């Protein structure tokens, strides 16, 4: 009877551990992408709440979507940069000139990105009144805070 109890307890413990691990894994799987998505949804919701004028609201939403898209592209480009530098570095014979050429490519990319980012930032701010701008900056949901931390690590 004692053996049966021990076996039963051990099984419960294993099941508990397995469920715990599964729950943790599931949580981690959804966190990064889902929190980011939630943050962007919160931002869109805040824009709809804050801007009364339907035309400006539509413009602000469209520019925000462009900004989100730009961040996705930045992440892809950074991943590619990482891949390239690993490939260049692993070759013992890669010359300094090859690295310099790679740096030049990054420079062109960053410069182009800068022009686009400033233009769209100015366009978005122009679509908002100073009061709307202030109100939007005040909106900080949990998802927004968490998403900024992950996006910062791009």
């Amino acid at each position: 009877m004692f053996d049966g109890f021990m076996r039963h307890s051990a099984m419960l413990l294993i099941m508990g551990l397995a469920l715990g691990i599964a729950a943790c894994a599931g949580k981690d799987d959804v966190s990064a992408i889902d929190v980011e998505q939630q943050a962007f949804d919160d931002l869109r919701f805040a824009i709809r709440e804050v801007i009364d004028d339907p035309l400006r609201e539509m413009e602000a939403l469209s520019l925000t979507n462009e900004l989100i898209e730009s961040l996705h592209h930045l992440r892809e480009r950074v991943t590619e940069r990482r891949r390239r530098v690993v490939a260049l570095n692993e070759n013992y014979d890669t010359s300094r000139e090859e690295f310099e050429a790679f740096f030049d490519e990054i420079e062109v990319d960053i410069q182009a990105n800068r022009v686009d980012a400033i233009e769209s930032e100015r366009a978005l701010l122009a679509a908002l009144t100073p009061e709307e701008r202030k109100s939007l900056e005040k909106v900080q949901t949990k998802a927004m805070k968490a998403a900024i931390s992950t996006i910062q690590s791009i």
Partner: protein
Amino acid sequence: MLIALFTILLLGGSSSFVFDYIADTRDNIKIVVPKGERQKAALGTLKTMKKSERAYRKHLRKAGKELYKALDLPDDVESELHGVWTNHFAEVQRRNHEMLDLRFELREQLTREEWGAIFSSDSAEQESLPPQS
């Protein structure tokens, strides 16, 4: 959140600083390079790389704060934004070149085989190498 996102976009990704991962190969150097003067020299180079990386991260936080402030200014203060960004980008270039020099310094301290064992992306040999003494 909008200004924060634009700031991140303008910084061009924190990994504009591309060699930081090399500085994290300390454990592999200890495994692959026999103990002695060469290992000591290689670890010293990695230490300098790590120091440069930390300085860059510190700069990045400062540049992020400055850009955030500048982005919040009206259009007619565009020069402020341009100034902050130009300084940031000059620092990215300076640090990348500094790390490139260190990368070549490290290359001189290691043999071709050691380099392959430490940095080759498909090197299963890295896992199987016994610790050197």
